[in-house]
């Protein structure tokens, strides 16, 4: 079974300090990134710093993740001056850290915003910050979209990193489940283009709303400008006419004004020569607002334009009185007409009848100040009044946004209180500008409603797609899991195969097909393997061999790790008994133990080891076995295993004994004439002596002193005959004795004694050279004698073959006894013709012979080779023109070592 479901995410565990450090670093980088906002218009901004943290949701432990997010979100406290957004972000991190383990990060963030995130924002922004409903709904939607986008982008970054794998060597990078991947793709597909669109669309929408307000303002300004200019021009003319008529002498104020003036002016006066405006104002009990205007360098001769001057005439009044100052020339003398306006005069002028909201029209003079012409709220008055000079200058060319609430930059929900100011010149009054102010609220409201619709649609779409993606990914995941399981257990594939119409992904369908094919062929192969295994088992069970395995450590085999059931058949033990400690070593025949241990020592890979020895049957008797073991070649240092087989070779051993016997008989045949000759000598003596005794007895000449020595001679000859027979003892003995340490010199001498008569008969000399004495080997003397005898006979035959072709040089067989470091060495060298090179490799093969029929069985050298090998030694042949040399090397027995020491 594949049970890797949640290993994707790190488990809760002791977190290494380095991870906490990395989390902290991620948090700090995220905090920095949070400073860059994605503007969606009307103060709606996305912050994307948490993206970086969520990219590593799979690699961070829950605690580290929460730590990183809590650091990166600190920006929201700094920016908005309240902790509520921060709390919502941190809760999101906690939720994802815990729940992402059960589902995908994207799905878990969606669930979070449904279950906790949105209600929390409602609670904090609505309940605590008292936000209006529209803004609240918008903020909720925006936070939801922002939160989900963060995780989706994080996943996207992680996938890019994973596929690009730039840091592959550092840390564990878990792969994504198909569910996570699918949900991430779907969400990304919906959210990213929507966000990009809103970000691109928002500024133009904002501009459009501003433009609309601006147009409105401009039109109102031009109306105000036109009305003011027309009024100033007409009143200038009227006032000049009034002054020309002499109705108004200089230095006097006329309060009883004619009808056409009294509606608009409260007082009209002509300044005295050299009287300044300020002096006039103080004479009237007030003051001019602006010093420059007060001591204005009035020069009616050069400047004929009327001007508007702000005066403060009413004591303690905060209101401003405006005066229209008109230059006037009468009788060649320049003077000024000052007409003080009634308070409502300008207001009535610029007011647009029938308009319900306040017009908020100001006149602004850089020198004299800002004055509202219409009724304005204190807020607006303050806002416009406190506009800096630079802003006033800007307002002439484009609308300027002024806000009455300062939440630092938290204009997310205060833009509805913002006002837009637009200013313009007044043609008739060059010192003055007219400024019009409109609240942004209606435009903002309109835009906000549009935005809300967008966000709600987006969120709805996100949830819908999320649901769809979740369903599809679950299904895809299920199918993939099944395909994967099928691949893992090919034999079950047919049973668990998903119907092809259920698989809606082409590649998966292909994989499924491929697995089906693989499963079919796997099934066939498994069947074949099973029957092959059955056959092998049957062979292992019924064949007269034991198959076994041993572990090899440091060149030494351990106890058996496997032994085939045929053990019981061959040796009577159950496999369980065979696998018990020391079973094998304790079952070896004591006489074969050392040899056996030596044979299976220093095991090396790729080599084959073999030995013939006796193992104890459970019934107590011993069975001759052939044991061959090969060590599997493996990499150096790896655990090695050796596999071996044990064969019952009792029958072969019996026939081998027979072969040895027949070889002995063959040797006997070869030596019979020599032996017979040797025996005939004493027999001849005895016969002659007996014959003579009888003849003397017949003739009655039995003198004791004569026949007693004769009889003693006869007895001596009988002794001699039996000594000859005693030398031939190997022909009467079998090889049932146990091997023991023997002095090879004695054995060589015994063999020479046996062979000598024949050699003498054939004119061959046997010479012994002892280069090292007291050399012991572990062997049966009879066996070694048989080998030596075989070699002597062969050498003698070789010499003979040379004689046959006319070379009559003296035949000589030289036997050398020697040793080297580890072995006893016996060399049998003849001065025969040597062995032809083409024959040399074959001489140890059974039944190979160069001799005519009846002279040799062809077994001699083969058997000799086998005997020496069984003793743990080597029999080699060398040849030269001087003759052949046979070299026997046998492992030294301990006796040699001790004696040598």
């Amino acid at each position, binding site marked *: 079974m594949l049970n890797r479901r949640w290993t994707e995410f790190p488990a809760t565990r002791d977190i290494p300090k380095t991870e906490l450090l990395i989390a902290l670093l991620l948090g700090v980088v995220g905090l920095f990134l949070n400073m860059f906002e994605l503007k969606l218009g009307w103060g709606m901004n996305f912050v994307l710093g948490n993206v970086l943290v969520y990219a590593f949701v799979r690699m961070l432990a829950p605690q580290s993740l929460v730590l990183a997010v809590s650091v990166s979100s600190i920006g929201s406290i700094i920016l908005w001056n309240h902790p509520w957004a921060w709390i919502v972000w941190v809760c999101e991190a906690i939720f994802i850290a815990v729940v992402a383990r059960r589902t995908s990060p994207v799905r878990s963030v969606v669930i979070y915003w449904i279950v906790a995130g949105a209600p929390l924002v409602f609670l904090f922004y609505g309940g605590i910050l008292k936000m209006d409903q529209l803004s609240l709904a918008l903020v909720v939607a925006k936070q939801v979209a922002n939160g989900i986008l963060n995780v989706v982008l994080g996943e996207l970054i992680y996938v890019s990193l994973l596929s690009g794998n730039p840091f592959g060597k550092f840390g564990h990078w878990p792969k994504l489940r198909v569910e996570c991947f699918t949900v991430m793709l779907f969400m990304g597909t919906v959210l990213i283009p929507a966000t990009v669109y809103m970000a691109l669309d928002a500024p133009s929408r904002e501009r459009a709303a501003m433009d609309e307000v601006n147009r409105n303002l401009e039109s109102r300004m031009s109306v105000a400008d036109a009305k003011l200019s027309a009024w100033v021009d007409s009143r200038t003319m009227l006032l000049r006419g009034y002054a020309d008529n002499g109705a108004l002498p200089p230095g006097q104020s006329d309060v009883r004004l004619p009808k056409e003036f009294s509606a608009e002016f409260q007082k009209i006066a002509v300044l005295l020569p050299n009287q300044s405006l300020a002096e006039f104002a103080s004479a009237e009990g007030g003051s001019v607002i602006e010093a420059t205007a007060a001591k204005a360098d009035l020069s009616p001769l050069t400047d004929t334009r009327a001007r508007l001057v702000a005066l403060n005439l009413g004591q303690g009044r905060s209101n401003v009185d405006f005066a229209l100052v008109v230059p006037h020339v009468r009788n060649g003398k320049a003077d000024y007409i000052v007409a003080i306006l009634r308070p409502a005069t300008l207001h009535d002028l610029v007011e647009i009848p029938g308009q319900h909201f306040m017009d908020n029209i100001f006149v602004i003079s850089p020198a004299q100040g800002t004055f509202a012409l219409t009724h304005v709220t204190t807020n607006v008055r303050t806002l416009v009044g406190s506009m800096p000079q630079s802003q006033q200058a800007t307002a002439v060319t484009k609308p300027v946004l002024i806000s009455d609430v300062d939440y630092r930059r938290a204009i997310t929900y205060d833009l509805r209180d913002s006002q837009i100011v637009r200013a313009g010149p007044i043609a008739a009054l060059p010192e003055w500008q007219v400024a019009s102010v409109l609240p942004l609220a209606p435009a903002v409201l309109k835009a906000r409603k549009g935005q809300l619709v967008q966000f709600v649609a987006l969120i709805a779409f996100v949830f819908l797609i999320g649901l769809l993606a979740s369903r599809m990914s679950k299904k895809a995941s299920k199918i993939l899991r099944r395909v994967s399981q099928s691949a893992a257990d090919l034999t079950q594939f047919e049973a668990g195969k998903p119907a092809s119409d259920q698989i809606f992904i082409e590649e998966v369908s292909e994989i499924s097909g491929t697995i089906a094919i693989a499963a079919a062929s796997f099934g066939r192969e498994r069947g074949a393997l099973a029957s092959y295994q059955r056959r092998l088992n049957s062979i292992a069970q019924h064949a007269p061999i034991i198959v076994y395995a041993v572990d090899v450590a440091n060149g030494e085999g351990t106890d058996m790790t496997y032994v085939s059931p045929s053990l019981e058949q061959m040796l009577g033990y159950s496999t369980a008994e065979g696998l018990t400690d020391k079973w094998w070593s304790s079952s070896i025949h004591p006489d074969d133990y050392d040899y056996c241990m030596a044979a299976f020592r220093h095991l090396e890979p790729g080599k084959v080891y073999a030995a013939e020895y006796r193992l104890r049957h459970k019934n107590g008797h011993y069975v001759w076995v052939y044991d061959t073991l090969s060590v599997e070649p493996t990499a150096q240092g790896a655990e090695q295993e050796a596999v071996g087989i044990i064969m019952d070779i009792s029958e072969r051993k019996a026939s081998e004994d027979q072969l040895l016997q027949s070889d002995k008989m063959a040797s006997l045949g070869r030596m019979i004439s020599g032996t017979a*000759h*040797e025996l005939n000598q004493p027999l*001849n003596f005895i*016969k002659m002596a007996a014959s*003579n005794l*009888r003849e003397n007895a017949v003739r009655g000449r039995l003198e004791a002193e004569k026949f007693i020595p004769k009889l003693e001679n006869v007895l001596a000859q009988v002794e001699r005959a039996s000594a000859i027979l005693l030398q031939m003892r190997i022909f009467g003995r079998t090889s049932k004795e146990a091997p023991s340490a023997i002095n090879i010199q004695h054995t060589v001498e015994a063999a020479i004694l046996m062979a000598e008569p024949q050699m003498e008969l054939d004119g061959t000399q046997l010479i012994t050279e002892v280069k090292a004495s007291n050399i012991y080997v572990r062997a049966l003397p009879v066996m070694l004698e048989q080998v030596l005898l075989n070699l002597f006979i062969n050498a003698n035959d070789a010499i003979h073959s040379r004689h046959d072709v006319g070379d009559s040089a003296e035949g000589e067989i030289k036997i050398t006894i020697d040793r080297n470091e580890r072995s006893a060495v016996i060399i049998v060298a003849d001065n025969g013709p040597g062995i032809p090179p083409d024959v040399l490799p074959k001489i140890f093969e059974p039944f190979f012979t160069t001799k005519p029929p009846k002279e040799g069985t062809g077994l001699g050298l083969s058997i000799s080779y086998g005997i020496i090998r069984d003793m743990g030694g080597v029999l080699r042949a060398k040849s030269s023109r001087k003759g052949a040399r046979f070299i026997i090397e046998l492992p030294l027995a301990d006796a040699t070592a001790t004696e040598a020491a």
Partner: protein
Amino acid sequence: MNSLLKGAGAPPFHSSSSILLIDDEYEILPEYQEFFELAGFRTLTCADPVQGMAMVLETPDIAVVITDLRMAHLDGISMIKGVRDALPEGRHVDFMILTGDASTQLGDDLADIPIFLKPADTDALVAAIRTVLVC
């Protein structure tokens, strides 16, 4: 096995001719000598084939030479050939071989020489000597 006397079936053989027996196993020579003398032959023995060869040539009485084959200094066949080559014209010596080697085979030039195997068939040997001496 019969007694020499009985087996001969004839009066004791008396002749001026001698027989020479050569065998390098000197212990047996007295027995040979006693045996052949009991059979009625004048008998000489010698353990050394070289010396025996000289004796044959020096002693005209020797009419029969009985020799072993495998001897230390000179083998029987070489000795026979040597004697035959060295014999003066008109002198005839008969040779007989008494050997323990059953595998003995002689060349064509020596085909007339009878071979007796050890242990000797005494009757046949005596009969053969008699036949030769009578001729």
